[in-house]
């Protein structure tokens, strides 16, 4: 498995297709949510798309982008075949190393709060509803 991290323009056309397709398949179709999955943040030069590849096949992805002094983490998803295989841990490890020295923020889907706690994130503020899915803001202190 190979992990890449960089702005959208460092991905090839077929890689952009794979990343956006996986995200729409998971967050729109699988989770039955008609929100604006692909947004302007994706194309900003400061946004980092983290991808896990097996050869040319995408296994999982996540993105990081700056919000003030912090890094916001999100759009974290895996292809069904890669779930429970340790790929998620590799993607998260890359995100944590890229964020070294900065606070990290994320909005956890509510059932995943304990998952992110294991990586040092702590809940703050109230649960909120994002397009019908309850989310918990979490942050991880600067390391």
């Amino acid at each position, binding site marked *: 498995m190979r992990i890449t991290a960089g702005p959208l323009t460092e991905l090839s056309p077929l890689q952009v297709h794979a990343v956006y*397709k996986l995200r*729409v398949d998971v967050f729109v179709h699988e989770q039955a949510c*008609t929100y*604006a999955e692909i947004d302007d943040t994706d194309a900003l030069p400061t946004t980092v798309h983290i991808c896990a590849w097996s050869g040319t096949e995408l296994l999982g992805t996540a993105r990081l982008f700056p919000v003030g002094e912090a890094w916001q983490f999100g759009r974290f998803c895996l292809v069904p075949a890669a779930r429970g295989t340790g790929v998620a841990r590799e993607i998260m490890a890359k995100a944590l190393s890229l964020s070294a020295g900065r606070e990290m923020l994320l909005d956890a889907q509510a059932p995943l709060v304990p998952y992110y706690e294991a990586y040092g994130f702590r809940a703050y503020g109230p649960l909120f509803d994002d397009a019908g899915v309850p989310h918990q803001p979490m942050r991880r202190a600067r390391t």
Partner: protein
Amino acid sequence: MNTFFIVSRFFDLSAYEIHALLKLRADVFVTEQGWAHTDIEDVDIEGTSRHLLAYDLSERPMPFLGTARVIDAEVEGRRVAKLGRICLSPAGRGTGISSELIEAAVNMAWETFPGRDIVLDAQAPLVDFYTRHGFETYGEAFELGGIRRQPMVLAAT
């Protein structure tokens, strides 16, 4: 407005063009039309598929006006050119370019699949629009994603 059309295979587009194309489709067919479907498909990257991208050359950066896609398909045992994912961006709406867009899409289909009939599944309110551009209804209307759709064909001449 000075409309400019690009016809391209997916893998010849830039990352920004792909972003604009897939974002517009998701904004329209997922969010606006409220249909949680797998809008981005493997057929998008097939070497035989072509994507139409419309831009307004009169402004910088060039506003992205709309898109359409043609793919290799089969209807009742014969090969056809299938148009779909036809949509206008907010910047492209109310500008009168919808006719230019469908004409460019038809030309793309003729050039990509010479001699084939062109088919599409028209969203019901657009049947009259496609009729004005030479399409005829065939077969039964059906519902997909909460929207009534009518198969239409433009016969090869």
